[in-house]
């Protein structure tokens, strides 16, 4: 019976391997896994006026 169980494990393992491979390929291609398809984070540029405004917030009136 143990051999039968291992044979079934092997069959299921083979099928799972195929399914996982099949599912992994599109995620690599689309960049979901590799991150290549991801967008760069938006860079927020603060002008000198804005920086001064925040610095002034700490000043006592």
């Amino acid at each position, binding site marked *: 019976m143990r051999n039968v169980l291992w044979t*079934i494990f092997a069959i299921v393992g083979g*099928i799972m391997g195929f399914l996982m491979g*099949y*599912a992994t390929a*599109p*995620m690599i291609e689309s960049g*979901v896994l590799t991150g290549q398809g991801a967008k760069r984070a938006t860079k927020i540029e603060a002008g000198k006026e804005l920086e001064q405004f925040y610095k002034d917030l700490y000043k006592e009136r």
Partner: protein
Amino acid sequence: MSEAKRKFWAFAIVATLVLISVATYAYHEFYLYLSVYLWFGFIYGMCLQYGRFCFSSAFRDLFAVGVPRMAVGIMIAIAFFALVGAFVSATGLSTFHSAPIGLHAVIAGFIFGVGMCFAGGCASGSMYKTGEGNMNAALVVVSISVTQAVFVDIGGWANALVPASWAKSASEKGLPASINVADGWVDQYLAGYVWDQPVLSFATMLGWTDQSVMGAFLGNFLVGVALPGAALLVVVYFFWSRRTFMKKRLAAASARPRLTDELAGYWAMVVASKRTAIAGLALGIAAGLHMYASQGLRVKYGVRNAGPLLERMGFDFGLSVNGTVFDPGYWYVTTQEAQWVGWVFHKLGWNQMDNIFFGFNNGIPNPLINPADWMSIALFGGAAVMALLHNEFKFKKPTLETAIWAIIGGALMGIGSRLGLGCNVGAFFVRVSQGDPSGWVFGIGMVGGAYLGVKFFNWWTERRMARQFAATIT
């Protein structure tokens, strides 16, 4: 059954599933999406049967005879699944969504807990027991399925029981006219009450996102599962395990237990549930990989739900008004059970598409092409294969009494499932593992219900035995 016959049937089941997968894939590539459900369902069935993974048995053992082994095993299984889930979430591949949290989850869990003790098996336990040939468990599955399909479409007189605030809130949701939200208790409960409740996760409560490493591992896994789980095991240890352990350990020395003794006792309790824990580890890995595989195929086919795939294959009957079908991408039990009965009812002339559960959310596709149904059917198969190989497969007919309890318990579980948006798997096991606090809330209710259910069942059994004994004497 002879060993040769058991081997034959085990291989026959596997061969049938392989044939279904290969033949359908040859017919159309999209069937592979359904085959993912099928093979993960098969694995779930094998794991459940191997680990005797039944919440009802766990609580019965704990509350009736004081044996915590299976309850501990389930807690360990949750921890393993949570760890795998954290990996999947952190990579952004999780298909899980938290559920609304509120008092309803406690009430739903309570009803479910009572029901599973009456039935003698929870939703998942009844499925693997059906795979073992237990026809009483099959009756529980049928009862859960029918009750859900009936309950989600109850209108008419039940509309009078809907609070005015629910009716008002539901009518403001702008649901399609085909749903007719003003007619249906569950519709107004969902749209008028449940949808207004907050949706949380431990990660978001701590200021992280579910997809961040901190959120997935520290928020959802550590704070959401590992710490409360370990604390719960401490409670179980002190109430149910410590006394027996210390009695054996300190019998000779007759000394006061030290911290090392306590830790040894705690560890002994944890490792005593080896079989359930191994099944839990396998379930956890499988459930995590299931999410991964489903997400991969969604990316490949350019869909977010199986509904459009079915439509592209020419099956447009039974899709929800949103064009979707029930497609969680992970282990689930009760919704697909409701769907197959909903489909039958609809075919017999009872419109099941005018309620939120089927018509708006899950649809009622033909069970032959319903992805989650493939998982359930294969789950029976996986449990049957494991039972055959361990010589635990046996056809058991229900008696009239056990059948009545199965129907009553199944009905309560069906109602609890729909109120809680899931069963012991979907509303508790999966949600707790994924850092959704509503899972713990459902669990609190379920433990309360199970306690009451066990105590009631004990009282009932003792009363009946006393009567039988009295009748024998006279």
